[in-house]
């Protein structure tokens, strides 16, 4: 622009245009649009013949039911519950199968093969105990629920039901300063936060989209469900009479998920009133026509997409994490591994929040994937306590086949009911996994919002754990 010197004639045109614009006044853009719409309407009247009122047909009948005051919410909860139930019950078996294959069969075989050809211990440690195990873990924990949850969601989307959910939920989300479509991105967050963040693209208002991105992490993703269930079973189920254990621990997990939704709404409200107050906001929600979903095609493409996503994530994010985890547990300085040094140093700090050094270290080195937090915690606890006869050796993540086994290790590591509760809270309220952080950056193109999304939940988590712990200690003396 600056490089070319405008000729007088050009300036003349531009200045003429400016003067004309001043003469036309403030409303002329509307005049243009109005006249085009008028012509379009005229043309449509000439060529379109409509028998009856289309709105009174099929679509409106369904809409009357799914958005009705009495049936709207029950239908929504039933459908979403069905999706979750299918996911949870359907994912169990393939997850076990994959774990058995990757960790139960291939892993020992790899170790054996490495030993037989004389691979140095450090190399087989880094490659097999570190990199391979992390990848195997992520794939077996994450793939089955993803491959069931998202195709189901996509079917509901193709049919046209999801916009109706947003329509029904908007009243609640409006009060929290958010967009009704956040109900959907929040639900998808229960599958995977990174996918939930990508899904915020359907929110076409800048402020509400940012709110949905920043708060998506409060949806408990499928990498965190197993942690919640395990800890609830051990510590909360263990604190009540045996016949109540099942229902109380299940209730505790649901309570954490509901707490997440509560935080999501509360933080949305806070953001819309504070740092995001000045961002532009525009609401509109189209209710597209219902269309019969193409089931097979949708299932197929969705399945392929999710599998590729999980593999990408496992290789790009989990693999390096696996290497780091093995290294911190196996590189020794002054006779102690780096992990033990850090655990000792951070333990008092962790105790203030009702956590411990092991948990803090596990959450730092397992940023890439929530799925490997529990295996890492177990490995580090064994490392720290020096328990004999459990686990696979220093720096090798493992999961015990029995809940009792896990409990023994954790209790040996000094865990109490309070630690369990705090771990559940902290698992809900901590930084998003690195895949999600990366996705947030890609979607917002902004360091600022990426940092806010990363640190807001962790600060919140520390504050909540701090007050829970200290008030608990004050009461129990």
């Amino acid at each position, binding site marked *: *622009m600056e490089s*070319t010197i405008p000729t007088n004639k050009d300036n003349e045109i531009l200045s003429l*245009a400016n003067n004309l*614009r001043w*003469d036309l006044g403030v409303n002329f853009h509307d005049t243009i649009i109005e006249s*085009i719409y008028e012509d*379009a309407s005229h043309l449509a009247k000439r*060529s379109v013949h409509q028998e009856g009122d289309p709105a009174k047909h099929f679509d409106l009948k369904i809409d009357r039911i799914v958005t009705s005051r009495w049936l709207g919410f029950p239908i929504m909860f039933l459908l979403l519950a069905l999706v979750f139930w299918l996911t949870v019950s359907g994912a169990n078996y393939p997850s076990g199968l994959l774990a058995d294959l990757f960790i139960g069969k291939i892993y020992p075989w790899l170790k054996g093969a490495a030993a037989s050809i004389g691979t140095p211990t450090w190399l087989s440690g880094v490659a097999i105990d570190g990199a391979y195990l992390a990848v195997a873990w992520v794939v077996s924990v994450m793939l089955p629920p993803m491959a069931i949850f998202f195709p189901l969601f996509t079917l509901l989307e193709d049919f046209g039901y999801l916009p109706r959910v947003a329509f029904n939920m908007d009243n609640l989300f409006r009060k929290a300063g958010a967009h009704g479509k956040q109900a959907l991105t929040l639900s998808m967050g229960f599958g995977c936060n990174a996918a939930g963040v990508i899904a915020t693209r359907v929110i076409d208002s800048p402020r509400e989209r940012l709110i949905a991105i920043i708060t998506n992490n409060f949806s408990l993703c499928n990498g965190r469900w197993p942690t919640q269930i395990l800890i609830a079973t051990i510590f909360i189920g263990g604190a009540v009479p045996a016949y109540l254990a099942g229902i109380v621990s299940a209730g505790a997990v649901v309570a954490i998920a509901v707490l997440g939704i509560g935080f999501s709404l509360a933080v949305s409200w806070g953001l819309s009133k504070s740092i995001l107050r000045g961002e532009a906001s525009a609401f509109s929600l189209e209710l597209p026509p219902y*269309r019969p979903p193409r089931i097979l095609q949708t299932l197929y493409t969705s399945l392929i997409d999710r599998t590729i996503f999980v593999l990408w994530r496992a290789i790009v994010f989990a693999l390096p994490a696996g290497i780091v985890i093995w290294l911190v547990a196996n590189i020794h300085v002054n006779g102690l591994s780096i992990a033990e040094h850090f655990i000792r140093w951070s333990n008092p700090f962790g105790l203030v929040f009702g956590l411990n050094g092991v948990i803090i270290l596990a959450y730092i080195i397992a940023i890439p994937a929530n799925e490997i937090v529990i295996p890492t915690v177990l490995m580090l606890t064994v490392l720290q306590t020096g328990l004999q006869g459990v686990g696979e050796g220093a720096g090798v993540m493992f999961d015990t086949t029995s809940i009792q086994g896990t409990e023994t290790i954790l209790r040996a590591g000094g865990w109490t009911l309070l630690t369990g509760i705090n771990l559940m809270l902290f698992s809900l309220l901590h930084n998003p996994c690195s895949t999600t952080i990366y996705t947030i950056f890609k979607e917002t193109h902004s360091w600022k919002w990426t940092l806010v999304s990363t640190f807001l939940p962790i600060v919140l988590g520390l504050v909540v754990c701090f007050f829970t712990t200290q008030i608990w200690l004050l009461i129990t003396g």
Partner: protein
Amino acid sequence: MSNPTGCENCPVHHKEHLIRMGIAMDRVDYVVALAGNPNTGKSTVFNNLTGLRQHTGNWPGKTVTRAEGGYSYAEKRYKVVDLPGTYSLLSTSTDEDVARNFILFGRPDVTVIVADATRLERNLNLTLQILEITDRAVLCLNLMDEAKRNHIEIDLRNLSKDLGIPVIPTAARQKEGMPELIQAIEEVASGKYVCKPRRKKSKSPKLNHAIDTLVKKLAEQFPGIPNLNWVALRLLEGDESIIDAIRTGELGTLSPSIFPSLTP
């Protein structure tokens, strides 16, 4: 030349004629731009034309990534550029800038406007705006199956006469009407079909006066531009890319080179 109707043997139906995205197209005969409102099945039409697999969904604005692909038909190679779905070309948003500037400065040989047959009035709004910019366009009236289900009848000949461009009924999800669409694209691209796009003046005398004044001035300096009315209108809207084109004098050539690429 192949038979335009009942086109089971059209070259487009043979996979080997499809050029996949990402493969550099060394020689392209025609550039086809695909424009349309969101949620009209534009991505499905794109996938049908190019054999690619872009994600589609029943949700406005689902397609976020832009795509290019290609096909060949009757020994000509066509490059298809999928423009972002927009409702209008008159406001300032990134998507609309991209679509508008590509049609004006990229000068595609044919612009295919994908419209939803069940909501023709709404879609004609964008159609009319596109016809202000380009005079080589085809209206692809998609979702005809849905229109039929809703008892909507459209007088295609009348519409085609009013708009001055070919109107092709399709049902892209069922892959119906694609051969006819490809045929129509070929006819417009090769000049066999000469479009006479509808361009109507607004009802506001004040606005018409302003446009006429500007057009007169513009015509003195940039003679021979077919869509000066649109240029004048955009100047009144303060469109920076037009202002730039005037400052640099490149409006005179309307050369594709000043619009370097679609990707941001």
